[in-house]
């Protein structure tokens, strides 16, 4: 029997993943049709001491992004505005989408809320969610008699 590492966050996040997948499948058809991006693509990576939520937000500025934490829900929202282009301009290709974006992630209970940090570099938002001390993997040495 192989050993499977216990990841307490896995079950909780997998429900979100399931929902996202369900809607993703549905929206996938819509997206393919008009080329517009309907939602905000996210990555969630588990590291030894933290989770990292990364989101692609090209064209937004730091001030356009809002991150809120309520109960155990982390919400990333933002508005991508098109105001930099004047109305007189002639458009040849319009594949980019503009408007409001919002995603909510259900956080696992093992996160230290006071230590959450975020950075926005090159159009990618990274939210660092440190794990609580007791949720970090620990090495326990067992002496053999």
């Amino acid at each position: 029997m192989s050993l499977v590492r216990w990841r307490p966050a896995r079950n909780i996040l997998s429900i979100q993943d399931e929902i996202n997948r369900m809607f993703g499948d549905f929206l996938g058809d819509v997206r393919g049709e008009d080329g517009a991006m309907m939602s905000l693509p996210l990555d969630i990576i588990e590291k030894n001491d933290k989770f990292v939520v990364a989101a692609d937000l090209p064209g937004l500025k730091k001030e356009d992004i809002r991150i809120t934490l309520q109960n155990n829900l982390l919400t990333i929202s933002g508005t991508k505005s098109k105001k930099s282009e004047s109305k007189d301009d002639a458009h040849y290709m319009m594949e980019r989408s503009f408007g409001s974006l919002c995603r909510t992630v259900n956080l696992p209970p093992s996160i230290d809320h006071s230590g959450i940090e975020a950075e926005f570099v090159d159009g990618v938002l990274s939210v660092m969610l440190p794990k609580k001390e007791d949720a970090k993997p620990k090495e326990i040495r067992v002496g053999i008699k």
Partner: protein
Amino acid sequence: MIRFNLMPNPALANRNPRAPQPRVDVFENDTEFNLKIEIPGALKDDVKIWVENDLLIVSGEKKRNISEDDQAIISERNFGRFQRSFRLPDNADRNNIEAELQNGVLVIVLKKSAESKPKDISIK
């Protein structure tokens, strides 16, 4: 799940859902053409822009920054190589092209050649 049986759209034919082509807006005003290409997370050194005959070609790579110990719980973002090419209009000045990365958007500005700019003609 029922999927709609859509006719293949040639514009989307080369889109692989895991490594799609970056989205582009192209527009022009009186003096220049503007291309805005969304490549969030791509670094300046990973992007190459060149002109070949009448084509402006942008290619590069979005690299995934993940180590072996990391566990991906959700991965929806796209990584990998991308390339897009654009046919240059006759009045684009091939020697006057500037590019800049701004918050994950590559902005390429092509100046129009002087003779193609709209001119006001006064009435004698």
